[in-house]
């Protein structure tokens, strides 16, 4: 066998083009469900006691988002089922979709940094970048707007200065998915607010849902804005 051929075969063995982009990382793709025992959410340690007026304003803000069908955004969208994770075959991006009225999350895993705040228009889902540390997907999100439902499980709400870190890791042979959320916000939390959701893998054949929202529905509007039972 001549040397060029041998060299070519050896190159074939190590050529990155033949290495699947996802071969080194777990595949989180699929549909995931939250069940009654999926949440471990302690009470948040808030920076300062919020006033009744602030709490009422935040509750009204979130109620208006539902009444008027705004984009709900993070972290509300993560609390619905089925959640879908779509992990691109080229390893450069991961999406998360939710059945509620919200844009998909785009998690860029191509090595880019966060978009400069000078040019980024804040969104309800923020700007997310991710990387793998072993079998754990680390996601870092900033750039939140005040669009949508702001409440954070355990207390507090997201603001323009919120910083969310998430760790995604498969458990039990890929049948469960642990997502550990850590919120930091100098305006909101005295210490990082950490909670965990453990999703169940949905059965094969599960399909996406669309919980659509119709702001023009008068009966719906009346229900949402009237005293209960009226």
């Amino acid at each position, binding site marked *: *066998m001549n040397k060029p*051929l*041998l060299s070519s*075969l*050896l190159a*074939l*063995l190590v050529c990155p083009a*033949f290495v*699947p982009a996802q*071969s080194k990382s777990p*595949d989180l*793709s*699929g549909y995931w469900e939250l069940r009654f025992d999926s949440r471990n959410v302690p009470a948040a340690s808030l920076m300062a006691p919020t006033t009744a007026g602030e709490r009422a304003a935040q509750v009204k803000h979130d109620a*208006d988002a539902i*009444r*008027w*069908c*705004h*984009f709900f955004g993070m972290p509300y969208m993560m609390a619905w089922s089925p959640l*879908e994770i*779509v*992990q*691109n*075959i*080229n390893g*450069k*991006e*991961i*999406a998360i*979709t939710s059945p509620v*009225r919200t*844009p*998909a999350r*785009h998690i*860029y895993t*191509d090595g*880019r940094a966060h*978009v400069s705040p000078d040019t*980024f*228009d804040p*969104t*309800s889902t923020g*700007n997310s970048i991710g990387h793998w540390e072993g079998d754990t997907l680390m996601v870092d999100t900033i750039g939140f*707007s005040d*669009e949508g439902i702001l409440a954070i499980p355990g207390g507090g709400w997201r603001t323009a200065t919120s910083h969310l870190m998430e760790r995604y890791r498969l458990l039990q042979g890929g049948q469960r998915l642990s997502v550990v959320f850590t919120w930091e916000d100098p305006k909101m939390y005295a210490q990082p607010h950490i909670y965990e959701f453990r999703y169940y893998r949905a059965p*094969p*054949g599960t*399909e*996406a*849902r*669309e919980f*659509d*929202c*119709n*702001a*023009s529905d*008068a009966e719906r*509007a*009346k229900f949402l*804005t009237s005293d209960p039972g009226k």
Partner: protein
Amino acid sequence: MNQQFRNTSVKRSAGIALLTLALGASGRLLLAQSSPAQVPDLSGFWERRDDVGGGNFGGILEKIVPKASLTPEVIQANQETAARQAQGEVVAFGSKWCLSNLYPFFMQHSAAWDLFQTKNEIMQAAEVHTFPRHIYLDGRKHPPPAMLVRSVNGHSIGHWEGEALVVDTIGFVGGGGTPGGGRVGVNTHLTERFKLLDGGKKLSVASTWEDPAIYMKPHTYELQYYKSDPGTYAFEETCHADDPKQSGSVVAPGQKY
């Protein structure tokens, strides 16, 4: 054995062993990649551009999409809509109330959309006010009519025919429109072919809409998209029905709440 022949033979055996190893190894890698590695990678942001001199995105469509051949009932409905617009209904009901954009609206919009691809599914995420579109590639069929849940993007299943992704969609909620003046009804059937062009720099999507209640013959057209620059990121197009500017129609809202 001749020493020269023996050396040659040893080298040949080593070469065959290496060849076997290489093929075996690459075979495992290919198997590990499963089918997605053997089909084109359509993933990424795609955007429309004006390369026909249309002047704007609506103008582009008028230049490249043939007029749909519509049934008399649909023609009459379109004329009634045009009359309402002539009388001042300048904001469509769906726009006024921020209703979800119905497929194929985002495919003809100026905003880029992001395509995600796995072995079992393709998902399209648009910036406009709509839900993600899910195209199942795992061999499932459309649900039977009694089980079909209608949605703004319909129920889509796809398969690969060579380098083309063929997508079949039913189950629309109805009420949307297509380029070329067509409409989308609850019984409309859409067939699409996604195919990369120019070494992956462009994506062709050929669409065929069929519905005897709407079209006199299948309505077929092709739109082409350019791969967005690396580093492209998603925007979020919000819509607030409670914002007076959003509902700036001269037609008063007929709602109490």
